[in-house]
C-alpha cells in the first residue's frame, strides 16, 4: 500500500513537471532551440500575481475568486515570454543555437536575481487557493490511502490546458502555421507564413501556460522561492521533455507523470539523497534505448 501511495503522490506532483515540460517542448518543436529561461519567467509571472494580490489585499481572505490571480500570472507569463523571445531569440543568429542558449541562461540568472532583489530573497507565502476547492485538503479514502486535493486540481487543470493547447494547434489557423513552421520552416516561409510572428506567438502561448503553471505550483507548494526552486525544476522539466520525446506535447505530459511517480518510488525505497540519481538513470536508459523518447518522431530534424 505504501508504494501505491507513493506512486499516486508522485503521479500527481508529476503534473508540475509536465506543465514545465510542455513549455520546453513547444518552443523546441517550433524553433528547435532551448529556452532555459522558461521556468524562471513562468515563476516571475507568479510573483507578479502575488505582488498584485498583496497590493489589492487579495492574499488574506479572498475578496475575489482565486482565478483572478491565475489570470494575472498567466498574462504576466505571456508578457515575460515575449520579452524573452525579443532579447534571446529575435536578434540572435538563427543557425547558431549557442547564442540563444547562452542568452537564455543569462536571462535565467538575471530574472532570478531580480526576484531576489524584489523580495530580499525571502520565501513568499502564496495563497493555497487550490485547497479551497475541496473542503478537506486531503481526500482520505482510508487510514492508509489519501490524495492531495490541490494536486488533483492541478492535475486536472494541466490536462485541460493540454487539451486546449492541442485544440489551438490542430483546429486553428494559428496552430496550422505553428505546425507548418515546426515541420518545414523554409516551405512555410514560401507559403507566406511569417515565421517571426509564428515564433513570437508560440512563445506567448508557452508563456501564458507557464504563468498559469507558476501560479498553480505556488498555490500547491504554498510558498514561492524563485532562486531555490527554478534551477532544479528547469532540470526536471528538460529531462521530462527528452523522455517524452522532443516536440511532443502528450509526451511531456506522460513523461512528467512518469518522472514524478518514478522519483517518488525511489524516494520511498532509497531515500532522498539518492532519489535524483535514479531519475538521471531513467533518462540515460531512454537515451540509450529509445533516444526519440516516448512519443518523438524517429528522425529528428536537423
Amino acid at each position, binding site marked *: 500500500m505504501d508504494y501505491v501511495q507513493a506512486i499516486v503522490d508522485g503521479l500527481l506532483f508529476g503534473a508540475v513537471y509536465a506543465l514545465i515540460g510542455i513549455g520546453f517542448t513547444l518552443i523546441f518543436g517550433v524553433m528547435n532551440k532551448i529556452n532555459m529561461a522558461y521556468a524562471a519567467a513562468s515563476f516571475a509571472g507568479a510573483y507578479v500575481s502575488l505582488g498584485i494580490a498583496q497590493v489589492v489585499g487579495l492574499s488574506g481572505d479572498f475578496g475575489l475568486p482565486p482565478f483572478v490571480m491565475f489570470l494575472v500570472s498567466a498574462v504576466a507569463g505571456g508578457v515575460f515570454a515575449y520579452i524573452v523571445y525579443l532579447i534571446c531569440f529575435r536578434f540572435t543568429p538563427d543557425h547558431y543555437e549557442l547564442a540563444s542558449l547562452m542568452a537564455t541562461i543569462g536571462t535565467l540568472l538575471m530574472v532570478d536575481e531580480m526576484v531576489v532583489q524584489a523580495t530580499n530573497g525571502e520565501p513568499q507565502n502564496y495563497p493555497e487557493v487550490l485547497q479551497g476547492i475541496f473542503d478537506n485538503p486531503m481526500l482520505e479514502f482510508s487510514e492508509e490511502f489519501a490524495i492531495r486535493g490541490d494536486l488533483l486540481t492541478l492535475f486536472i487543470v494541466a490536462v485541460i490546458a493540454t487539451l486546449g493547447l492541442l485544440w489551438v494547434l490542430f483546429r486553428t489557423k494559428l496552430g496550422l502555421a505553428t505546425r507548418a513552421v515546426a515541420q518545414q520552416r523554409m516551405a512555410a516561409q514560401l507559403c507566406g507564413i511569417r515565421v517571426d510572428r509564428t515564433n513570437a506567438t508560440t512563445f506567448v502561448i508557452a508563456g501564458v501556460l507557464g504563468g498559469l503553471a507558476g501560479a498553480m505550483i505556488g498555490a500547491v507548494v504554498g510558498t514561492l522561492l524563485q532562486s531555490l*526552486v527554478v534551477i532544479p525544476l528547469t532540470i526536471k522539466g528538460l529531462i521530462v521533455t527528452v523522455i517524452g520525446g522532443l516536440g511532443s506535447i502528450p509526451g511531456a505530459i506522460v513523461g512528467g507523470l512518469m518522472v514524478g511517480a518514478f522519483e517518488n518510488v525511489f524516494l520511498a525505497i532509497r531515500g532522498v539523497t539518492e532519489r535524483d540519481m535514479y531519475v538521471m538513470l531513467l533518462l540515460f536508459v531512454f537515451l540509450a534505448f529509445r533516444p526519440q523518447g516516448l512519443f518523438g518522431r524517429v528522425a529528428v530534424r536537423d
Partner: protein
Amino acid sequence: MIVKRFYLFAGAAAVALTGVSGTALAQKFDREVHIAGFGAKSGVVRSFGVNTEGMMRAAADKINAGGGIKLGDGKMGKVVVTFYDDRCRAEEGISVIRRIASGKFVVAVGPTCSNVAEPLFGILQKTVDDKSDSGLQFPIFTDTAIKGGLAKISAWAFRNVPNETEMYKNLFAWVKKKWPNLKTVYGGVEEDFAHSRFTWYKVMDKQAKAAGFKVLGRAKWLLADTNFTTQVRAMKKAKADIISISSHPFTLCGLLKEMRRQRVKYKVLIGLTSSSSMETLQGCARQAKGIIIPTSFAPVTAAAKEASAGGAKYKASADLHSAAAWENMMVLKQVMESKGVMAKAGTIQADRRKIRDGLAALKNTQGLIGSIKRHKSGEATKPFVYVHAQGKEWKILHDPNK
C-alpha cells in the same frame, strides 16, 4: 555645451563632497578605522547579508556618535564599514577576503554561509607565528556561519555564534522537565545544507537521546524540495510526541504546510536556530504557530532594543545572526582600545595582529542579552532564550537564565 556644464557640475559636486567629508572628519576624528563586512547579499540568503550589513552600520553609527575608537596614541578613530557580497560561494568568499586583506581593513566580520566559512578559515594561517605556514594572517570575527566547531580551523578565526549543542541540550532537558510524559522524538533534516545537516546529526539527535527521549526516526529532504508528501506520511505513522526539525525557513514552511494537510499530531514542535527569523513568519506564520526555537537574540534588554532600533534604520532586522554583528563591532571597539591599535597606513599588519591577540585573550564579552563566554578555540558560549512563534512575531517562551 551640455557636456561642459556637466563637467562643471561634477567638479563642483566633487569639491563640495570632499570639503564636507574633510571638515566632518576634522571636527571629531583624527583617523579612520576600516572594518570590512562580508556575506551573502544575493540569492536565497540575501536577507542575511542585508541584516548583517545594516547591524554593522548601525553599530558603527553608535560608536562614532560616542566619539569613535580611542587609538594607541590617544587620537580618535572613526569607524568606517565597507560591505562585500560573496554570493555564498566559496570561491568568491576567498576572493573577497583576499581583497579585504590587501586593503586598509584591520579586521573583517562575516561570512554568512558555513560553506564559505570553512574554506575561508582553511586559507588562514593555522597557528600563529608558524613560519612554515603561508596561510593568510588576517583576523575574521564571524557573526553568522554557525556550523559547529569551525573556528578551531585557524587561530585567526573567531566566532560569536551560539553554541547549538548547549542550546539543544538545555532545551531538550527543559522539555523533559516541563512535559514529563513525553517520550518520543521524530526528526526532520534538510540533508544537503551544511548547517541544518550538522545540527540534526551532531546536535539535535544526540541531545534528544541524552535527555532520555527515544528518537523514532527522521524525515530527510533537500534544500530545493517542494513536495514532502512521502516524508510527512512516514512522520505521521511514527506518532511521535515531539517533532524536531532542522531546516531553513523555505523547506520548513513547505514541510509544516504538508504536516497541516496530513493532520500530523504532535505535542511539541522544535525548530532550528536559524528559523527564528522573520522569513519563517513571512512564509508560514499560521502553520509555524507554537514552534519552539532556542535563540541567542530577542529584544528583551535595553541594549537589545537599542540594537534592534538601530538596525531598523538600515532596514535590517535583528535576529540571532545579525545581532551578533552588532556585538562583534562593540567587542572589536573594546579590543582595539585595550590593545592600542594605531590605524595608520604603516601599522596595518601590526594592528591586525593586535586585534587577533586581543580577541584570543578575551574570556568574557558583554552581549546584547547577557554575558558571553569566550573559549580558547575561538568559539563562544552565548546566553539564549526559547522563543515561540505567535502570529506575526516571536515571543519569549522561557528564559533559562532566570
